[in-house]
């Protein structure tokens, strides 16, 4: 639990380091080392974060939507393959404080135990890959804190029964390591820690997961995305949910197409998870690709440059 907070603190402390010029210690580029750009088109890959950042003074307005099951009991032609339903919706504003530091706020419907989610996030990039391999990878850290605004359940055994306000909180801390190979292939590793303050009986408060993602560029404006997370949930917890509630946990797997159209980046996604935020889709995915319980969705990103374009045109 404290690990998450510590990493979040590190993210915030790096803000001060940067403000005082200390981030030059981490500066991976000089006049002789050219930075690798556009490892991904967006700050997100499919569901999770990428090492891409907003530029200084850029505001990113993001909308993400996940529809209902394409197949299975709730999919098929009667719901037009899930488009009649929505499992999660997220609207966010994210802002680049510098080229290597961004913050954001969002509101999500929530597709797990908790709903009506308000999120605050911060991401800092320590290193950026260079073309001459002086720095071989890009490295960033991401953290968020999420609070649920939903009505407390009357069922005291439910995760959504809140004794006090802190029961509504969830956190994520994540390291992101990316490398762009040649001009077509980008790969990312994402060790992730999820902490939820209040969970159902035999669920886990602290969950470590390892994410892997990549992009294969098909053309200048089009890329094929894939993303997979392996949560290290205890066997005891899995067995309990399977035996008592008939719930099986699945590893989130997402596929997508990344399309850049001018100032927009548009992603079409297919995932088995019902949620958008890491706080939920990593620990709470109980739907399976093989049973038709996958859904299509989209991420739309529209960036605006505030305070003039002078800073990032340098």
């Amino acid at each position, binding site marked *: 639990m*404290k690990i998450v907070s510590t990493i979040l603190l590190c993210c915030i402390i790096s803000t001060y380091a940067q403000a005082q010029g200390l981030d030059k210690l981490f500066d991976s580029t000089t006049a002789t080392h050219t930075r690798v750009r556009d490892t991904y088109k967006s700050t997100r890959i499919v569901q999770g974060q990428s090492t891409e950042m907003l530029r200084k003074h850029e505001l990113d307005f993001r909308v993400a939507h996940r529809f209902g099951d394409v197949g299975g009991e709730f999919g098929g032609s009667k719901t037009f393959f899930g488009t009649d339903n929505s499992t999660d919706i997220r609207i966010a504003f994210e802002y680049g404080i510098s080229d290597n530091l961004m913050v954001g706020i969002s509101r999500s419907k929530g597709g797990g135990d908790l709903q009506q989610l308000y999120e605050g996030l911060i991401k800092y990039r320590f290193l950026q890959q260079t073309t001459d391999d002086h720095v071989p990878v890009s490295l960033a850290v991401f953290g968020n804190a999420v609070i649920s605004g939903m009505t407390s359940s009357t*069922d005291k055994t439910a995760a959504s029964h809140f*004794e006090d306000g802190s*029961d509504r909180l969830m956190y994520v801390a994540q390291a992101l390591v990316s490398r762009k190979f040649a001009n077509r292939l980008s790969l990312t590793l994402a060790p992730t820690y999820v902490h939820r*303050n209040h969970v159902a*009986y035999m669920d886990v408060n602290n969950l470590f997961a390892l994410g892997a993602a990549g992009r294969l560029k098909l053309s200048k404006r089009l890329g094929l995305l894939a993303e997979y997370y392996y949560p290290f949930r205890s066997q005891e917890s899995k067995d309990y949910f399977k035996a008592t509630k*008939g719930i099986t946990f699945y590893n989130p797997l997402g596929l997508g197409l990344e399309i850049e159209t001018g100032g927009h980046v548009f992603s079409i996604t297919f995932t088995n998870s019902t949620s958008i935020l890491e706080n939920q889709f990593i620990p709470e995915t109980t739907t399976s690709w093989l049973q038709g319980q996958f859904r299509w969705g989209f991420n739309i990103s529209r960036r605006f440059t505030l305070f003039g374009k002078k800073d990032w045109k340098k």
Partner: protein
Amino acid sequence: MTRISFFLLAMLLFAACKNDQAPAPVSGGVNCDVAKITTAYVFATIQANCSSRGCHPGGNSPTVADFSTAEKLKAYINTHRSVFDLRVTGPQADMPQSMGYPALSQGTKDSIACWIAHGLPDQ
């Protein structure tokens, strides 16, 4: 000022971290072998949690799942038993859909399941 705000926020988040787990469920306390669950009880529950909130009113979406009367509720269960089990009384039940409304308690779900298992008795 910004730095102080960041530090205060970080400290607040740090202090709010805890590991809390809900108590083990006690299977709702319903013993279906002896429980007498009637249509009137279940219909009142459906009214309180669904139709009083504008859901399943009949004559509107969803047209098939019309719970405006006890007879229509029973007719739906008789023709769509598996869907009702899955979405209302099953382990992954998602009704009532959120919109700020709390989920049915395990006891309520068990009572409804018991009523169905007994053949939807009125008395």
